[in-house]
Structures are given as structure tokens and as C-alpha cells.
């Protein structure tokens, strides 16, 4: 594999809350290669957004980040000051947020904001920045781009705003784009377009992409590799085919049974369910985080640290005490209706 753009080892984020220390992200490892798309998927509160914010160093004040390795493009991000980080943000790594409504400044025209995004990091004139903005707006499928530069965010629809956000994130040709639920606020038809666009641009500019979502449909269609996150940990990682065709962790298996799939799930039949709720992450936790909701739970799950283990292939890893063979059998079993 080529030299990875982003390498992360043992990333932890702790947040101080009144009742103690909330361990939002616990010892996660991953790397993203050039032009690769990694999807981090999980339910609300699992720590996926915090992971993204911690990479950008945009965590709330009460949170602390620690990592054994945090390299972007061969540069160590640990210990960088706010100034150096803001030189990187928007430049080498850019972020696309969920709400296109609130992530653009309503007081400035989009042309202004696009040019600013570039001039902040590059020593270019307004003309050059404007040309780049027009070029990228056309790339993201906005017609009549030059005329649109003077428009303000409120004059654009949600889908158009998200396109502008994507164009803005590309202004400085970043090595890595972090997209946090970029299509959740959009309609299905627009969602498909935006994802299509992201995939096209990733291929064209060879940008690496980390896509954070709760939607397994998006993951399956866009990702090269998948990390399933639960209660602050990665519980399963692997290529998209590995995770979707042979889900090993009981949580991944449960999630895939929960969603109705046209043509696959039978109409009116019961869907699978994961009972219980996400555990409280305040304080130290013993054993498997999913134990309280798992239907295969036994004594070995209750204590110690459950490590990631390889499934049938080395690149497919999951965090469970069960052997790959047992897991494969579990994943084939029908849901109890």
C-alpha cells in the first residue's frame, strides 16, 4: 500500500462532565491511503463526530485528546499550536459539516467565502482565487457559476449550499476531506447527487475522504473501507465487501438486520432489533461494550479488554471473543421474529 495520508494510533478523547470523565473515543487506530474513502459508521453518541473533530483539533474546551501517532501527510499533528493547526485546516485537511444552512456565513456572498478560503492559505490574487472558485463551482455542478459568486447563502437551496461547501473544501486541494453526515439534512434525490459528486471529485483530485454517517446504505455504496464504531471503539473494520458480505461483530450483524431493504426484507415482517441502549461511557468500562445488548453474550465478555482480532482475512478485524467461524454462523442465522 502506498504511503498513507493519515495515520492514527491509539487516539483517545476524554470529555469532562459533571459526573466524571466521559471516554468518548477509546484507542482507535486507522490509516487512510491516498484517494481512499474510509467510512466511519455508528449510531448517535458512539463518538464518530468527536473523532472527526479531534482530527481537526476543534474539540470543545472540556475535551482532551491523546494519541500515540497522529500523522497527516508525514507531519505530526500532536502538539501543534492553534496557529499551525489553522494553517492546516482548509489547506491540507478540510471538513464538510452536516448542516449546510449554518456552516456558511450568511453575511458574505459565496464568492467572497470561497476566495477567502483560498487566500487564507495561498498567496494568490483575487482574480486567481475567483477563477478557481468558478472552476470548482462548475465542477460541483453549479451552472452559471460566475453569476452565482455574488449570491448569498440564503438564496441557495440546501443541495446547492452543500455543493458550495464541497467546492469550498476543495479550494486548496486538500489531501484529506472529512465529511460529517454531509447528506443527512438533504432529500434522497439530492443525497444521491451529492454522494455521486463526492466520489467523482475524490477520483479526479485523488483526495482521501473520511465519511462519517449512520446510514449503512451510504457506506456500502461509497466506502472503500469501513469502520463500525460502537460506544467509543471500533468494533469492526475491513473493506466494504468484507464487512457487508461477512459481518462478524454481533453489533454489525444486528445493524444490518435492522434496516428494511427493498426486495430483500419481506414486507410486513418483523425487522431485526438490537434491544437495550448504548452504555454510559463515563468512567472505566470492563469487558465488551456491547455485552449488555448482545444476544451471544457469555462470561468471557464481562471482564478484561476485548482486543480486535482478524477474521478469515487479515485486513478484516473485529472486536469479539467469538471465533470467526462462530460469527459467520451467527450472521447466517435468521432473526427471531
Amino acid at each position, binding site marked *: 500500500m502506498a504511503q498513507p495520508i493519515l495515520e492514527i494510533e491509539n487516539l483517545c478523547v476524554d470529555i469532562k462532565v459533571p459526573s466524571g470523565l466521559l471516554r468518548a473515543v477509546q484507542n482507535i487506530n486507522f490509516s487512510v491511503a491516498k484517494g481512499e474513502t474510509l467510512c466511519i459508521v455508528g449510531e448517535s453518541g458512539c463518538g464518530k463526530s468527536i473523532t472527526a473533530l479531534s482530527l481537526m483539533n476543534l474539540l470543545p474546551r472540556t475535551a482532551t485528546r491523546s494519541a500515540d501517532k497522529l500523522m497527516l501527510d508525514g507531519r505530526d499533528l500532536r502538539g501543534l499550536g492553534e496557529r499551525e493547526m489553522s494553517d492546516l485546516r482548509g489547506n491540507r485537511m478540510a471538513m464538510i459539516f452536516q448542516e449546510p444552512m449554518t456552516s456558511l456565513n450568511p453575511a458574505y456572498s459565496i464568492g467572497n467565502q470561497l476566495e477567502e478560503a483560498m487566500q487564507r492559505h495561498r498567496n494568490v490574487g483575487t482574480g486567481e482565487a475567483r477563477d478557481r472558485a468558478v472552476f470548482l463551482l462548475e465542477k460541483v455542478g453549479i451552472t452559471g457559476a460566475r453569476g452565482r459568486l455574488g449570491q448569498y447563502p440564503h438564496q441557495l437551496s440546501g443541495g446547492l449550499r452543500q455543493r458550495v461547501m464541497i467546492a469550498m473544501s476543495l479550494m486548496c486541494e486538500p489531501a484529506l476531506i472529512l465529511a460529517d453526515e454531509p447528506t443527512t439534512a438533504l432529500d434522497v434525490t439530492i443525497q444521491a*447527487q451529492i454522494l455521486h459528486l463526492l466520489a467523482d471529485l475524490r477520483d479526479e483530485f485523488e483526495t482521501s475522504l473520511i465519511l462519517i454517517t449512520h446510514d449503512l446504505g*451510504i457506506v*456500502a455504496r461509497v466506502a472503500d473501507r469501513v469502520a463500525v464504531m460502537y460506544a467509543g471503539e471500533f468494533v469492526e473494520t475491513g473493506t466494504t465487501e468484507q464487512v*457487508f458480505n461477512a459481518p462478524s461483530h454481533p453489533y454489525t450483524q444486528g445493524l444490518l438486520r435492522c434496516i*428494511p431493504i427493498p*426486495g430483500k426484507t419481506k*414486507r410486513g415482517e418483523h425487522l*431485526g432489533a438490537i434491544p437495550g441502549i448504548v452504555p454510559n461511557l463515563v468512567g472505566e468500562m470492563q469487558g465488551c461494550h456491547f455485552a449488555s445488548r448482545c444476544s451471544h453474550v457469555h462470561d468471557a465478555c464481562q471482564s478484561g479488554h476485548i482486543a480486535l482480532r482478524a477474521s478469515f482475512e487479515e485486513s478484516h478485524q473485529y472486536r469479539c471473543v467469538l471465533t470467526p467461524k462462530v460469527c459467520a454462523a451467527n450472521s447466517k442465522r435468521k432473526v427471531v421474529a
Partner: protein
Amino acid sequence: MSDPVIEVSDVTRTFMISAGFMRGKKPLHAVNGITLDVERGEVLGIVGESGCGKTTLAKMMLGLLPPTSGTLRLDGKAVGSADRIEVARILQPIFQDPYSSLNPRKSIGDIIMLPLRVQNDPNPETWQSRAEAIMDLVGLPKRVINNFPNQLSGGQRQRVAIARALINRPKIVICDEPTSALDVSVQSQILNLLQDLRSEFNLTYVLISHNLAVVEHMATRVAVMYLGRIVEQADTETLFKSPRHPYTEALLGSVLTPVPGLGVPDTHLGAAYPNPIDPPSGCTFHPRCAKVMDHCSNQVPPTIGANGTMVECHLYADGLGQKAKGKKTRKGKRK
């Protein structure tokens, strides 16, 4: 066989929207001449993009919003004239956001018993036991009866909302995006529950959702809305297997099933959803349509079919005479 519990005939709802500073107000036809029957016992799915008017339609069915023109009949009685309490006995809503649909200052018991209190139920001594029975039915432990909404998870709150809707045994439940605010694993629990309750109480559901996979799973018939009109209606199987309207096709094409390797579909829909204040002429879908023809931009498409299976598109018109007729009547309606 036709036994409609809700009859919507030619209903229009117009809002006056300010067009901009000093430019006066312009009409927005949120719902523009909809005729729709909901049959007893069916699950009617209503799908469409945001701004297509599906929530406005639901509000009119609930009697929360009077139609500008046209009539809605509920179990044979006109909604507008009937008492609100009368309507509430037949029809109950379940809303999208379980965080804002429960009054944070009231206990779960009070929230669930509110319908009985409002209806002046003659047996107050049975209220508590009935609330407990319905809580049991929707999977809420009895002990939460004295808790407050902020103490419950999103899934539990949605169960409270369902219990409140069902305690008076309504005939119809209107579910407006009942699971879109919930996590995947909770969504499936709520959908399963809705299925079970439906057969338990012989309920009729109107299910409004933008999640086509959910609609496919739950609904028996689907109506597709676009810019205030129903552009296609068919039973779920037919609609998902062979969609007729190009918009339905595009919608179905953009569903992302979790099957790896298929890539993201290209819907050819173009970027912009038209401004509903200033809808396109002719067929309102023509600027985004992949199968657009010359006359689509100036002729309103005819309605083809009836009795719950219909499509509104020039592709399926057989003669020009019908088109002209369709255009004439629709123009009349718009005024």
C-alpha cells in the same frame, strides 16, 4: 370493493408568502388539487421530497389546518364541520420528533391519559389501569408512569407518543416520519411495534416518510407527491417493481440499499428543486425530467387511471384531446 375512511377530494391549500422586501405577497400552493382515498385497513405511504406538501396534507387530514378549497371526509363526515374532539376520536397523529412532541413538564402518565381527559371519558377510575395496559402494549415498563420525558430515551419517547395516540382506540393513525429522528436499531423496534399494533387494533395508517425503504416495508399502497400534486399512486409492489412516472423512477433510483459494489446511482434530476412559489409551467416536473417531451413544458399532464392507481404524466396519455381537456380543468382549478 371500496371502503374509504378518509376521502380527500380536490383539496387545495394556499399560503401567502412574502416574495421579498416591498414585493408584496405571492400564493404558494402547498397542496394543489389533491384527490386521494384512504381505504380502511390499508397502510398508505406518502413519499416525496421536502417541500412537496406531504406534511401540509397530513395537517389538513388531522383538522389542524383548514383547506383553502375542496373537502376532506373522515368516515363519511366532513372534517371541517365536525367537532375537533370527534375527529380526534377517529384519527390520531404520531409525530416525527419524540423530543418535541411530548410536553416536558408533564409526567408520562399524564401525557398518556390526556386523550381520556380531553374526551371527558366517563370512567376516570379506569384511566390509570388503561394507561398501564397501553404502556405494556407498546413495550414501556410500568414504572416510568411517573417519570418525565427527559428521563427517557428517544425510542421510549416515541413509544409514549404511540401509547398516547392509541389509548382511545382510534381507527386511523397518521404517522409523520415516525422514525426519522431515531437511530437505526431503534427505528426497527418502532416499525415492528407499529406493525404489531396495526393487526392488534385493525388500524389504518397513513405513513408519511422520505425513507423509501421504510415505506416499501410498511405500506400497502404508495402515493408519490411532487410540488403539491400526487403524480403517481399504486400498490406498493407495482410501484416499486414498475414505476411509471419518471419522478417515481428517479426517487426509487436514489434509494441506497446496503449492497457493496453498486456505486452511487446517477438520478439525472438536476440540482434544483423548483421554487414552489413560482412553479414551472405545464408539467411541473419537466425541467428535471429525463424523458421530457416538447409539449411537457406548456401542457398540464392528464390524470390517467383512478381508484387508487393513477399516474399524471404525458407519457401515458393516449390522445391529444385528453391532454387539452386535462389542461383546461387544471387551469380552472388554479384560479
